[in-house]
């Protein structure tokens, strides 16, 4: 029953936090602690080889709403709890309306619901709920740029979900069920892939890609994630985007999507990293970077072997942790200096508190893949599992690009005396920073002993250090050659056109693959 309880009671608390103004902050913390216990119970059951699965309302599996847990949902639930704890700590001293905590409860409720959801329509409803909640969260401070960014997000996400619903209609017409487990049985038994499967799956993928931060589809993302307030950006970039990736993973397990996801991951990774390299606004750079890092996750899902999916999951957790940490610390740094551009931040770096700079440093090291931090583990697993040379090259280019884009921040880390941060912020940095530092032993949980020893030998250490070195060298060269990249593609009309082009691309790729 826990899988039904976890989402539902957040929705209950969402209503309650409007009614009881003074206790909202404590209630949020208590609810996260209780969530942690419940997720812990699920982990215990899972370790004992037992997965939970309920059908709501006493219907059959074909028509009822199935909620179930598996390794994917549990891992992401853990990430949600860590990020939630950090965000609540970060906001502990801030004065926020109860309305804000209502939205946070709705967000966590829908995140848990999506993790346990097992049918296409239930996923549609929860994704729409996530859209609405993050739309309101981005526009929470009601600044004009926030409102415009969130409005663009809403229009594009709603268009995407409309396309998704068309896919749902076709799937239901041909199979009479929307349950993913039953669907995978139907499709794998039908031998060669029927025509409708390529049309339906490309519609579904297009819809989900709009929500999950893939470059051609999620052109709303840079504006929305860069303008939202720091705690919200951390949640959106660390957690909400990953929910789209979870749905892509579930779709990839059912439909034949390998080729299309691999191509999309290369596109989003490389274009995202180019924009990140040439962006000098800290929060905008982090937002572009999210687009590129989604490339790693989707690549692992696209290849689809066991070790690749594990690598993808590890990188998803790692990325959630360090992107959350970077957004929180960046918010504090921007507040302390009053500047958002990186040169301005560097000029006034003595005003940035010490803990904030340490947080930025840990996040940067994690995202660059310096061993043995969080980014290193995921990247190593992904490149070990990849067999083709093209994919290896893309992975190396992505890693070098990551280092180049973050090398801009290095002057911030010169040792200097700084003022002190308030304690809630330090707690937030600790909650996210410690798992980043201790990720290598933690990743032992995902792998068998032999896989673990095979994956993390001397070679990956040397390789990732070489990548960092190459990236730093390339940064020295590229710094002298600034480049103006087209900004028009992020306008509403152009973004819709590009989604349309992306849909045809996906359709052709699914049809070929």
């Amino acid at each position, binding site marked *: 029953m826990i899988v039904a309880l976890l989402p539902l009671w957040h929705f209950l608390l969402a209503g309650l936090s409007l009614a009881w103004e003074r206790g909202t902050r404590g209630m949020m913390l208590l609810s996260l602690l209780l969530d942690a216990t419940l997720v812990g119970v699920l982990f215990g059951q899972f370790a004992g080889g037992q997965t939970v699965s309920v059908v709501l309302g006493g219907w059959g599996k074909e028509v009822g709403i199935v909620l179930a847990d598996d390794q994917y949902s549990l891992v992401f639930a853990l990430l949600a709890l860590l990020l939630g704890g950090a965000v609540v700590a970060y906001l502990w001293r801030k004065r926020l309306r109860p309305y804000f905590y209502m939205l946070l409860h709705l967000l966590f409720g829908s995140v848990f619901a999506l993790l346990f959801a097992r049918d296409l329509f239930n996923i*549609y409803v929860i994704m729409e709920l996530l859209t609405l909640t993050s*739309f309101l969260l981005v526009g929470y401070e009601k600044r004009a740029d926030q409102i415009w960014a969130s409005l663009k997000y809403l229009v594009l996400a*709603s268009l995407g979900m*409309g396309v998704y*619903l068309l896919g749902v209609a076709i799937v*239901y017409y041909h199979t009479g069920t929307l349950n993913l487990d039953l669907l995978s049985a139907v499709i794998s038994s039908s031998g060669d892939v029927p025509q409708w499967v390529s049309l339906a799956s490309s519609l579904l993928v297009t819809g989900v890609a709009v929500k999950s931060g893939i470059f051609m589809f999620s052109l709303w993302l840079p504006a929305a994630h860069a303008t939202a307030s720091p705690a919200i950006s951390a949640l959106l970039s660390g957690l909400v985007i990953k929910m789209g990736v979870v749905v892509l993973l579930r779709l990839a397990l059912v439909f034949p999507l390998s080729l299309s996801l691999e191509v999309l991951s290369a596109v989003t990774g490389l274009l995202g990293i180019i924009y990140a390299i040439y962006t000098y606004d800290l929060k905008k750079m982090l937002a572009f970077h999210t687009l590129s890092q989604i490339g790693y996750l989707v690549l692992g899902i696209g290849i689809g072997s066991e070790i690749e999916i594990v690598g993808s999951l590890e990188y998803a957790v790692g990325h959630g942790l360090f992107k959350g940490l970077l957004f929180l610390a960046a918010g504090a740094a921007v507040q302390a200096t009053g500047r958002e551009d990186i040169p301005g931040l560097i000029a006034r770096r003595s005003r940035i508190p010490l803990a904030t700079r340490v947080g930025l440093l840990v996040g940067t090291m994690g995202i660059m893949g310096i061993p043995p931090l969080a980014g290193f583990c995921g990247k190593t697993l992904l490149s070990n599992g990849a067999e083709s040379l093209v994919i290896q090259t893309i992975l190396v280019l992505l890693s070098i690009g990551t280092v180049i884009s973050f090398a801009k921040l290095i002057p911030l880390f010169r040792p200097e005396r700084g003022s002190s941060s308030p304690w809630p912020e330090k707690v937030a940095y600790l909650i996210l920073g410690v798992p980043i530092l201790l990720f290598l032993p933690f990743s032992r949980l995902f792998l068998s002993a032999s896989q673990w020893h095979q994956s993390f030998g001397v070679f990956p250490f040397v390789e990732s250090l070489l990548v960092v070195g190459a990236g730093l060298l390339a940064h020295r060269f590229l710094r002298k050659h600034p480049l103006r990249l087209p900004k028009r593609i992020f*306008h509403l009309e152009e973004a819709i056109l590009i989604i349309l082009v992306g849909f045809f691309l996906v359709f052709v790729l699914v049809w070929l693959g």
Partner: protein
Amino acid sequence: MMSINGVTIAIVLFGIGLLGLIIRRDLVIKLLALGLLNGSTILCLVSLNSLPGGVPPIIRGPSAVLYVDPLPQALVLSAIVINFAILALALVFVMLLVERYHTTDTQRLEHEIEREETS
């Protein structure tokens, strides 16, 4: 030869909605086009899974009658409510923008907001 049924109408409406979203510059008309587009997906879901000549799925007497599948109708109910919520919230945000910039033209909004960001 294509006959006129719910699905073809839905495809045409989807196209009109998409065209409106892309070429009309007025934000309110864009939202109306979005509503049309989302409505067409609902029409598609219902009419694709309809059963001409079927009776409502309420069992009276012998069960050998051809019943309509009730699930698509149950599904689109939630979809309709969701689309209503999206349009309502989007219009609230459009109101906030209009109060500030006195325009619903997307190009001008984009321009004004970019100028404020760079200044």
